[in-house]
């Protein structure tokens, strides 16, 4: 446990010291959500209809971006081999790294989401809920993504493959999260949808590290 925790701390330090690499997905999130009015029209009504869904897709795609480097850098410079040789369970490593990356990138994404929500003509009173939904949803996206990240770690040009492998895993979170935002936009009851989103992330946290660890052990030997 303590070994996993030191990996977690190391990852956090790396994420925040690496010249703002962790902030790139946040920029992508803002830019891609800002494209919405040009695609669906600038009318308030059109934005309110399409906004929640587009925002959720933008969140999912922004969560995919850091996945390519999640394990790849550590595999290339031998850090993962050192971890494997140290006797620490690869599951703990996968959990620590994914969680650290989520804190470094996922939480900033969630902080930005109410801003984008209001830009897309969503009701400002719902900001807290949007933050919460994005927080929970990006956690699920990061953990399901970690399986794809681990599978593609040993490949050149693995980025596109991560998208192809991971997007099917995103479907339930996509449905539940977008339903939460949709319910919030229409003033409907959002609690059930939010809880289902949370259940998707809990399922991801509980299962994805095992899948990622299997894939990482393959990549190492």
């Amino acid at each position: 446990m303590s070994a996993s925790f030191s990996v977690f701390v190391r990852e956090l330090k790396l994420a925040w010291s690496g010249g703002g690499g962790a902030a790139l997905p946040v920029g992508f999130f803002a830019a891609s959500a800002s494209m919405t009015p040009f695609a669906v029209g600038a009318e308030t009504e059109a934005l309110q209809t399409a906004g929640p869904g587009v925002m959720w897709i933008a969140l999912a795609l922004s969560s995919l971006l850091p996945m390519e480097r999640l394990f790849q850098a550590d595999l290339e410079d031998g850090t993962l081999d050192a971890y494997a040789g140290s006797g620490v369970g690869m599951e703990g490593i996968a959990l620590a790294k994914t969680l650290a990356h989520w804190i470094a990138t996922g939480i900033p994404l969630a902080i930005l989401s109410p801003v984008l929500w209001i830009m897309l003509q969503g009701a400002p009173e719902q900001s807290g809920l949007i933050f919460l939904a994005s927080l929970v949803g990006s956690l699920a996206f990061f953990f399901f993504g970690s399986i794809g990240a681990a599978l593609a770690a040993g490949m050149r040009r693995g980025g596109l493959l991560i998208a192809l492998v991971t997007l099917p895993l995103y479907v339930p979170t996509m449905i539940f999260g977008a339903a939460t935002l949709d319910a919030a936009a229409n003033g409907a009851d959002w609690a059930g949808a939010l809880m289902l989103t949370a259940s998707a992330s809990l399922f991801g946290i509980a299962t994805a590290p095992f899948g990622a660890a299997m894939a990482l052990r393959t990549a190492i030997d």
Partner: protein
Amino acid sequence: MAVMSFFHNPHRFMAGSKWPAWGFTLLGVVLIVVGFGIGFFRTPEDFQQDERARMMFVHVPAMWLCMFSYAFMVGASFISFVWRHALADVAAKSAAPIGAVFTAIGLMTGSIWGYTTWGTWWEWGDARLVSVLILFFIFLGYIAVWQAMETPQKAARAAAILCLVGAVNIPIIHFSVEWFASLHQQSTFMTTDNKTTAEFKIPMYLAALGYLALFGGVTLLNMRAEIMKTRADILLQRRQAAD
């Protein structure tokens, strides 16, 4: 178990699979021709759907076989993962493109059938349609993993993991789409009726058996090609090493 250890030796597999591979392929083609022939020309028109119901003979077996192919791949991946059975990797890899083709045929014919009967090409509220579409993407991802990895051993492990993860994922997607559909209060797209008569069943089963035999035959052919390719690679390496 005995069968598994028997085929652990590729030489034995190569010796035993030559005639079954071509036999099943031929049998599949014959059964499909006969099944489609009866279905298209002998079976009377359905009283509700007229000629369009004949789409069933192409569509329904394709849907069965796409699920069967994936189940086969899951089984093979499991064997490959647990016992590191070399031939199981090859089997799963060989079945993937065939499964993907069945899924594509099923999706396309289903879409055309849906348009002519219900007036819509696609219905997002239907859990079956959406899960099959996602299954198709998983097939593509699986094939892509095999092609992207540097060594076949690593590719086999990674692909097996993806296949098993997909097997967990498909039911979850099915239920989430059902929930999504009930949220949007759409009427169910398809209703299953059990009125299908023997005149429809016989050609459909014939076609399904034909698809199954074709699947078995082409999978075996693919496996043989794969093993021959591995042998050729090894021979090439030996020659290069000798030079």
